């Protein structure tokens, strides 16, 4: 009986680890975009995965593991931010030190991915993300980085769809205003608009 129990435990752990191995990069990406730092992202993801493992008996085949963990991770993140109440809010009128709003003036060529790496757009987008409240940041990450629909986000965040929509619109609008000079760059605009 004890042997069977140990065997079951081992099977659970192996199944869980296989699922984590399959999805950990995507989950880490979301954690990184939420927290804005590698160390915090690892801590957040580990906490979410331990919580998921404790609830693994409730996980049913057919459920998307990544969505299941993302839900726990988002709630853990929002709760921890609420507790800490530490938000580095920048004023839209005065960009933070070291943020050059004219940095993309010269080079008009290249695909967006190259521009991101060349000009550090990734950092700027992350900085703009970091200015948002945890609730607004979560909805942007889930929508525009993880590709969730409004319906999925409403389920994951446990809020009505109208709330998801208004948070997403407000967050994007704020980021648009912050990154406006960057977004005006011709290299980023080619063939982008709908």
């Amino acid at each position: 009986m004890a042997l069977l129990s140990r065997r079951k435990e081992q099977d659970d752990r192996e199944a869980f680890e296989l699922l984590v191995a399959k999805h950990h990069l995507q989950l880490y990406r979301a954690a990184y975009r939420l927290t804005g730092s590698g160390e915090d992202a690892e801590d957040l993801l580990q906490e979410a995965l331990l919580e998921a493992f404790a609830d693994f008996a409730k996980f049913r085949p057919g459920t998307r593991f990544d969505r299941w963990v993302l839900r726990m991770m988002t709630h853990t993140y929002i709760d921890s931010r609420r507790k800490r109440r530490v938000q580095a809010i920048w004023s839209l009128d005065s960009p933070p030190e070291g943020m050059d709003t004219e940095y993309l003036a010269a080079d008009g060529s290249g695909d967006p991915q190259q521009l991101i790496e060349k000009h550090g757009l990734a950092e700027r987008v992350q900085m703009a993300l970091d200015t948002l409240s945890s609730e607004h940041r979560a909805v942007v990450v889930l929508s525009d980085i993880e590709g969730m629909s409004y319906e999925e986000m409403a389920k994951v965040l446990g809020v009505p769809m109208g709330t998801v929509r208004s948070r997403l619109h407000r967050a994007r609008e704020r980021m648009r205003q912050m990154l406006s000079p960057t977004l005006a760059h011709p290299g980023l605009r080619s063939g982008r608009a709908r």
Partner: protein
Amino acid sequence: MRVDQDKVCERLRTELQDYLDGRLHGARERRVQEHLEGCPLCRRELEDLSCLVAAMQELPTPRPSADFWPRLQARLAAAPRPSSAWKLRVWLPAAVVAAALVLLALLLPRPQQPVLPPVPLESYVSEHFFVAGNHAMSGRVFLPPGLQQAPRRVDLGDDGP
């Protein structure tokens, strides 16, 4: 004229992101499209939003540090077994409540049966005599042997045996 245009822009601006996300259909979608054709400001805003979303989708995927996986495995190995932990969380409170109920039932004083004084036979018979005597169906009475002053059987019609 510009004021009117600004009002239209303001109203449609709330729908620009819905349009970008493909959530507008039919007349609402056409209305936004028609406005965009004639309004460079809103077109610019839509392009900005579109570029922002594209930039976020194309952000590089970072990788966790080398010790992330071993650290996670060690923590998972030390964590309680998922199924038993879940069952324990579900069953333990139920078991505690059940035990408390049993204990309560054992400790509570049992209600005593009221002890009634014996009823004399005569009073019982006379009481039933008056009830039966008032029977609406027959108007006749039944008395046990020894108290016979009336017929022994009562015709109760359909209610009878």
